[in-house]
């Protein structure tokens, strides 16, 4: 009889513990329900404070070795490509909203310094410009030159994404002719420059 009593007490304790687990699960459900309420109030890109989209940008773009050309009468360009992708996008009505992407140089200032530069790591005063295009190959021309346009506060308009999976592959072009006639003693060395990609959900124009 004593053993049965002990066994009954142990089983009762187990059942009490299981009941607490159920309560915890109910609390989690309640919390999720609150989140859904917020979604209803903001259908233009997700719950406030939550991640609405993920874009993928190039972490680095490398022109590698830049050689001084034999003349500056012909075109001598060094091209490298870059890609920006809308990796994930939720809750956006493509008829109303779009994720616009802009790009600028890290040191760009609207109205004064708007070009893209790479600077000598040992002497930042030695720097050379490069151009950004939204196309590759034969389509790299003035009409696809991003920094030929007017720069806005957030940078030069690059592209707009309305669906997940969309991407833009463009070109960064370094005109080697700007090295022609330069003293190697002055310009030799490693160069770097950084791009800043700005993105935001905006109204479809």
């Amino acid at each position, binding site marked *: 009889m004593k*053993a049965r009593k*002990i*066994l009954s007490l*142990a*089983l009762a*304790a*187990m059942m009490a*513990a*299981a009941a*607490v*687990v159920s309560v*915890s*699960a109910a609390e*989690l459900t309640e919390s999720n329900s609150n989140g859904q309420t917020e979604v209803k109030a*903001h259908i*233009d*890109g*997700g719950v*406030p*404070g*939550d*991640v*609405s*989209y*993920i*874009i*993928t*940008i*190039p*972490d*680095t*773009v490398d022109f590698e070795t830049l050689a001084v050309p034999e003349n500056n009468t012909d075109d001598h360009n060094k091209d490298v490509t870059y*890609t920006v*992708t809308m*990796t*994930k996008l*939720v*809750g956006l009505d493509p008829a109303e909203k779009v*994720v616009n992407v802009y790009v600028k140089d*890290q040191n760009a200032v609207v109205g004064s310094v708007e070009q893209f530069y790479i600077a000598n790591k040992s002497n930042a005063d030695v720097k050379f410009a490069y151009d950004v295009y939204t196309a590759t190959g034969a389509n790299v021309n003035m009409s696809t030159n991003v920094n030929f346009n007017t720069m806005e*506060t*957030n940078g030069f308009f690059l592209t707009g994404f309305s669906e997940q*999976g969309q991407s833009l592959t463009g070109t960064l072009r370094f005109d080697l002719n700007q090295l022609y006639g330069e003293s190697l003693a002055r310009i030799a060395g490693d160069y770097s420059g*950084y*791009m*800043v*990609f*700005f*993105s*935001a*959900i905006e109204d479809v124009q």
Partner: protein
Amino acid sequence: MNKTPHRKKTLLIVAAALLLTAAAVAGVLLFSGVFQPKQTNAQGVVGVVTDNWDPGIDEKDKPKQSGTQIPGYSSAQMKAGDKTLKINIGNPKENKVGMFASVKLSDGTVLYESPLLKPGQGVTEVPLNKTLEKGTYDAYVEYQCVLLDEKNTPLNAAQSGFKLMVE
């Protein structure tokens, strides 16, 4: 004569029941948040940086890509005078680089700066350097990407713009 085997059997049943009870109680503590997730040592920086940061959107069909993934936002909300802001800032685990994240207003006012966020680390609620009055502000999260080397060599950066609504 048969008392000893019977007692042994009873004790075994009781021991098994107690073990199951202990397991159930441990489960309850786990679900109720008594065991917090592992936190990094964010010395000198206010805010809780956690591992296993989740951007909160379905990732099952997300393709593997080169480059760095940057989270973007539509808006964030807070009350006038609040000293914290709920916003899901982090470095997606797919990345190979580190990030320093900061929350800024479009006029350059810095509201928050994170410590180094390694892939998979992030914050969901940030303490603010200043309180804001009612209104709608243009704001952005700046992600400065860096190599995970000793110098945290800078890489390209990204800014995710959003509307900050202070009610």
